[in-house]
């Protein structure tokens, strides 16, 4: 049986070209980049070049790029770092209800420390309204943190508009772009983004923005983020970025077509099922479908048995078994939130794979509904 991986938003295989470029930094080029000898300089140069590449794709300057251990750390640093550095100015933070837990739990932590956080509602397609951002601003507001695109439902936020509002009110604007990168074109200067987090991991900090250090220790990353650099990871990230934006328009067109085919196929073939998230302002690789009367984990297990790896909500929370906070924020009742499934496509996704899912999903859903007491009730009530 063919294995189809449709959870590329959770993790994705490292491309051959990326791994190849990383390998020497495990074995030959292992000198600590902070040292003076030649071997170390090779690594330092590799980091500098990676920084340049990454800066270029973000529209940033190299000295605005800081490497972290991942998206979660970048989010923690951005939010806690600003909260601490600007606490004399105010204690109010604006974010949304559908942020990743790396942002939400950090904000909740700050609430316990005496900060005030406004969690903006989103509309039923998962969109933050820039007007709501504007209305939430107070004198004490020091930070607006709105994700670039949501990891579960793929909705792309009106980042430029929010950036404009932040600029007009002179409030620092952070965006978690972990899911957006490689799928949309980002320009931090044009979009008035002051801080931006990437997975794998990177934090852009605009020149002039103060941030309290988050990880204290050695003088790496110009004294702002301590810890021996993960050279292979950094080099790999830059290469991955290059590949992502190579033939960008063409790739996005292809994957968007496959995405829409999958969405269309599912919602026409399966009754009582609908697309979660926005129809067009949507990541080109994201399909999130709410299927009534079935439960998500069972659905995923059955998909897996059929060789299809998908996810329900975000992978990071599957340990907690709670229904997705994102789907609840869209206004979905619990049973529908539980019955949602996310397929995230990759560049390598084929039409055959999409067709295979379209063949299997209706059967699996029918099988589950046949044993669902909710479906039984529904049928009886609608007889």
């Amino acid at each position, binding site marked *: 049986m063919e294995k189809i991986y449709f959870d590329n938003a959770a993790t994705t295989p490292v491309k051959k070209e990326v791994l190849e470029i990383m390998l020497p930094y495990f074995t030959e080029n292992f000198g600590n980049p902070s040292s003076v000898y030649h071997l170390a300089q090779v690594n330092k140069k590799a980091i500098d070049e990676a920084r340049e590449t990454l800066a270029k794709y973000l529209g940033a300057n190299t000295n605005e790029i800081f490497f972290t251990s991942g998206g979660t750390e970048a989010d923690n640093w951005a939010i806690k770092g600003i909260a601490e550095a600007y606490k004399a100015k105010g204690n109010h933070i604006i974010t949304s209800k559908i942020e990743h837990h790396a942002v939400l739990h950090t904000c909740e932590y700050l609430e316990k420390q005496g900060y005030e956080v406004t969690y903006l509602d989103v509309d039923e397609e998962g969109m933050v309204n820039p007007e709501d951002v504007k209305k939430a601003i107070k004198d004490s507001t020091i930070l607006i943190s709105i994700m670039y695109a949501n990891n579960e439902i793929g909705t792309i936020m009106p980042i430029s508009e929010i950036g404009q509002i932040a600029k007009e009110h002179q409030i620092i604007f952070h965006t978690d772009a972990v899911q957006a990168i490689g799928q949309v074109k980002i320009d931090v200067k044009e979009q008035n983004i002051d801080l931006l987090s990437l997975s794998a991991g990177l934090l852009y900090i605009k020149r002039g923005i103060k941030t309290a250090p988050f990880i204290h220790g050695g003088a790496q990353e110009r004294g702002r983020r301590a810890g021996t650099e993960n050279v292979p990871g950094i080099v790999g990230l830059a290469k991955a970025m290059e590949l992502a934006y190579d033939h960008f328009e063409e790739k996005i067109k292809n994957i968007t077509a496959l995405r829409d085919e999958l969405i269309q196929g599912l919602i026409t073939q399966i009754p009582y099922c609908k697309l979660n998230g926005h129809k067009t302002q949507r990541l080109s690789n994201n399909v999130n479908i709410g299927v009534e009367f079935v439960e998500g984990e069972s659905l995923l297990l059955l998909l897996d048995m059929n060789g299809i790896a998908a996810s329900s909500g975000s992978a990071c929370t599957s340990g907690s078994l709670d*229904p997705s906070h994102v789907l609840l924020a869209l206004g979905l009742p619990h049973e529908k939130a539980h019955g949602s499934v996310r397929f995230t496509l990759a560049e390598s996704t084929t039409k055959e794979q999409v067709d295979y899912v379209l063949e299997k999903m209706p059967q699996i859903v029918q099988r589950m509904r046949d044993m669902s007491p909710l479906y039984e009730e529904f049928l009886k009530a609608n007889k």
Partner: protein
Amino acid sequence: MYSEKVMDHFMNPRNVGEIEEASGVGTVGNAKCGDIMKVYLKIEEDIIQDAKFKTFGCGAAVATSSMATELVIGKTIQEALHITNKSVAEALDGLPPVKMHCSLLAEEAVHAALWDYAKKNNIEIEGLEEPKADVHDHDHQEGTGCCNG
């Protein structure tokens, strides 16, 4: 994550369905938790002749429903009453700790069906208490029998 036995009962659940004119029917769990179990029992001469279920829930919920119905078929009411969530979980070669609640749900569903049978027949079953939770009644308390939460 799941034992082979759990996966077997999930993939090939025994006794899925309804029993028309069942002697007792019990539904427990709720949609908020993401797990609802409905158990149908056919009881004759104090013996559970047949059991069927329908379940909306995770892999563990389906497997425990399947196993619980398997275990009660052919048992007397009193014997069935003594099939605890532990025995269901053990019969499945164990469940992941976060999923132990599911086995409680299966136990409760059987009890609820027995309670329904007792009510219908106006009898009292020794040792059986009124089911704590029902999908139509109220929200589950936190941490009790909530499979997905």
